[in-house]
């Protein structure tokens, strides 16, 4: 039974790591753990956890339809695993949504604000109701042997047929409405994927995927519990799936041909290769393999086909909701934390599946629970060489340990500054260039200001005007440059250099040299700089320094210049515009023509957009 135990250990580890990421996501916001942006507001969590997750759980409605509507009784052995997979799958979708939604506590709002025109409203309502239907379909299973609740069980068994029909109705709606979601993105989704029949394509591929997901899950659990898989049933499912895949391919390529989009296939751009890869993995290769009886009757063939269809359909959903979506700038790749959350949700659902598999009659005979199999001799853990306690609890101790260790590892990995940065990337400031005419351009992006020092000095009253701007110098220095203290473009900086003062290079000061004994050691109660460095504040400086945190470079420059310019704009004749942005940040405001190119590239990169020369129409 080592297969099951090792598999569970891995699942617990992933869940532990995901738990750490989950805490971070709710504490610091979506931006702290995802690579989502205003250009790609939907990423892996929507593409995989929701859009693919719902499709992966489609086995429930397909198999119940086969067994209870078409009355193919031979498939009865796989109906319970299929219902359980669907139920847990939908729960996983909802849990995934809670991580992805910005305001998950409002998840119930669609119940009270009906929006018939919104496909997402449609999906939300159907998912809620279908999860309830699946719950009612599932409940009789654990109640099989319940003494008191047997009446509830019998009642629900009587209700089964209406529930199955309702489940199919709801599934048809939301499996296709997931495709309708993307009908609104006709100016963003690549034409190879965008088609008015997206809802129909989504529904049909969900049926194909549902069949192959049931196959995959049956093969996997049979492997884990060393049990004979129901190959004769699975190969029949494979045959049906090949039919579904064929219908899908005809519709998809027929639609492309009718819309005259087939030439896009040979256009040679990135999307055309993406399309070919997707169609080959998901539909064409499995279709060919499944139509060969030798392949669909063999364990290996079924493994290969089900894996390809499962991975491929997920690929298709992620393409539609992400990779094939064209945005104005930038690209999106999921961060490791996004991958961990997605994997963690799947791992938790798999653990729940295995738990229920061992506790209830999902198969005709219950698999032996590896933990309840009493081992008489207490044994030592093979990796840590320690005893994990009594044999009956050894497994649980091991899983808990792995969970906690992985969660701790997760928190360690997430303790970096990126999580707390609120999306601001540190941008160190460099010295302004030039002599008397300065080019002030702290982060060297050439979007700066040309500052004429002598003109400002003369206009403001000669030598006496220095202290209007210069307010603090390094010790033994007369005019320290701004960037020494205001060392980041957008972030506050530490002007004191606390640790440097304690280091040998900085004089190796003891704590009590600044924090006088008997007082609390805070910035407020410490000695002021000028008590040791007598000359750092020029006499009469207009700006007084209260604490030793230097504001960002942009705040320092704007604060210094604009405040004064606003006063001058009122005082001086015909200079009303000098407090406005373009009076200093002039387009083409660069010291030389060579830098003009830099301005252009900056404009296109960061803050402003450069248009091509006016088009003739």
């Amino acid at each position: 039974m080592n297969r099951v135990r090792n598999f569970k250990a891995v699942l617990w580890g992933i869940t532990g790591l995901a738990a750490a990421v989950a805490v971070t996501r709710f504490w610091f916001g979506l931006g702290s753990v995802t690579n989502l942006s205003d250009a790609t507001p939907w990423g892996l969590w929507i593409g995989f956890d929701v859009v693919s997750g719902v499709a992966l759980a489609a086995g429930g409605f397909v198999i119940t339809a086969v067994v209870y509507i078409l009355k193919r009784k031979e498939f009865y052995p796989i109906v319970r695993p299929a219902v359980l997979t669907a139920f847990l799958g939908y729960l996983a979708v909802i849990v995934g949504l809670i991580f992805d939604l910005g305001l998950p506590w409002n998840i119930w709002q669609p119940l009270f604000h009906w929006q018939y025109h919104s496909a997402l409203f449609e999906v939300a309502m159907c998912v809620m109701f279908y999860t309830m239907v699946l719950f009612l379909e599932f409940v009789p299973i654990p109640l099989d042997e319940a003494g008191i609740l047997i009446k509830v069980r019998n009642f629900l068994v009587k209700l089964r047929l209406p529930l199955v029909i309702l489940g199919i109705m709801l599934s048809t709606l939301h499996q296709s409405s997931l495709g309708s979601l993307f009908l609104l993105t006709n100016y963003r989704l690549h034409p190879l994927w965008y088609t008015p029949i997206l809802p129909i394509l989504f529904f049909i591929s969900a049926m194909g995927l549902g069949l192959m997901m049931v196959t995959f899950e049956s093969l996997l659990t049979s492997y884990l519990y060393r049990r004979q898989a129901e190959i004769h049933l699975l190969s029949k499912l494979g045959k049906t799936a090949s039919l579904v895949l064929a219908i899908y391919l005809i519709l998809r390529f027929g639609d492309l041909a009718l819309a005259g989009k087939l030439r896009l296939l040979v256009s040679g751009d990135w999307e055309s290769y993406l399309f070919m890869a997707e169609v080959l993995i998901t539909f064409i290769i499995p279709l060919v393999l499944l139509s060969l009886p030798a392949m669909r009757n063999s364990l290996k063939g079924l493994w290969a086909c089900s894996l390809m269809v499962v991975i491929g359909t997920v690929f298709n959903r992620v393409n539609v909701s992400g990779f094939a979506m064209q945005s104005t700038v930038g690209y999106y790749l999921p961060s490791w934390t996004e991958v961990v959350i997605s994997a963690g949700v799947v791992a938790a659902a798999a653990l729940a599946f295995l738990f229920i598999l061992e506790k209830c009659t999902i198969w005709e005979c219950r698999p032996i629970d590896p933990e309840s199999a009493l081992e008489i001799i207490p044994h030592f853990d093979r990796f840590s060489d320690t005893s994990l306690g009594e044999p009956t609890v050894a497994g649980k101790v091991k899983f808990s340990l792995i969970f906690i260790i992985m969660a701790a590892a997760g928190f360690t990995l997430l303790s970096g500054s990126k999580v707390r940065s609120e999306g601001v990337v540190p941008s160190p400031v460099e010295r302004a260039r030039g002599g008397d005419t300065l080019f002030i351009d702290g982060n060297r992006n050439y979007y700066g200001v040309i500052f004429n020092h002598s003109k400002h000095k003369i206009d403001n009253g000669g030598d006496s005007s220095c202290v209007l701007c210069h307010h603090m110098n390094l010790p033994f220095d007369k005019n320290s440059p701004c960037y020494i203290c205001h060392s980041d473009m957008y972030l506050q900086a530490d002007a004191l250099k606390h640790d440097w003062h304690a280091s040998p290079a900085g004089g190796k000061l003891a704590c009590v040299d600044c924090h006088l004994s008997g007082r609390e050691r805070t910035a407020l109660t410490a000695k002021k700089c000028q008590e040791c460095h007598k000359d750092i504040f020029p006499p009469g400086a207009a700006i007084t320094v209260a604490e030793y945190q230097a504001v960002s470079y942009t705040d320092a420059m704007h604060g210094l210049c604009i405040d004064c310019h606003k006063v001058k704009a009122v005082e001086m004749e015909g200079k009303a515009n000098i407090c406005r942005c373009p009076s200093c940040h002039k387009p083409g405001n660069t010291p030389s023509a060579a830098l003009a190119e830099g301005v252009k590239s900056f404009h296109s990169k960061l803050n402003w957009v450069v248009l091509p020369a006016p088009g003739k129409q």
Partner: protein
Amino acid sequence: MSAAILTDVTKCIGCAECVNACKTANNQAIDIPRRWQQSDGLSAKNWTSILSTEDGHFIRKQCRHCLEPACAAACPVGALHKTPEGAVIYNSSICLGCRYCIMSCPYGIPRYDWQQPVPYVRKCILCYPRLQEGRQPACTEACPTGATIFGDRDELLKEAHLRLQQNPGKYILRVWGEREIGGSSVLYISDVDLSILSYNREFEEKAIPENAAPAMISVPFVFLGMGALMTGLHLFTLRKNRIEKEKRAGEGRANE
């Protein structure tokens, strides 16, 4: 009256007074560049921005307040909706944070508070509280050159066409926002191409919600149709199985 804004690109001097006025009127602090922002200067705190061109044109970007907004059609709870006054506004108390509005906007306008534990969708709301007081939006009020003006949509359209007629050769003969994707309440006239304001594709006249309308209309029919089909199939297989059973029983008796 249907509130609208007309921006004349040829009159804009890029002074960014509208941006500052917008910040003051809507209590938004100065924003700094963040990892998830786009290059157009809009962000959760910048609801309007000025794009500049190398040949000295300035183009103001803001929400277009479409007549048939894709964002409002997308919203599963109606948190974003078009008011009778013409503004597309946001109700943060029922928003789920699904960000489908950001996905569906053809102009890429709505922005998100990615750094907040309680994030909201942010975009220009045409100063809706001011409209209700009978005042004009802060941006048009602040504009020193009259490059961006406020008024009734029909009158502004007339004004725009008048300017196109009276200044032959000055403008591109087109009013942006008049008809494409159903029309919008924010109109532009310009002497440069304004496709930069969207995803750089030429828009059709068909409004975006109309793409999803056939699918959404067929929802109840598909729902009930599927129910009827399944019930029918159930009855059919029931009957078929019974006939087969009787047949088998008959054969069995015949064999005896």
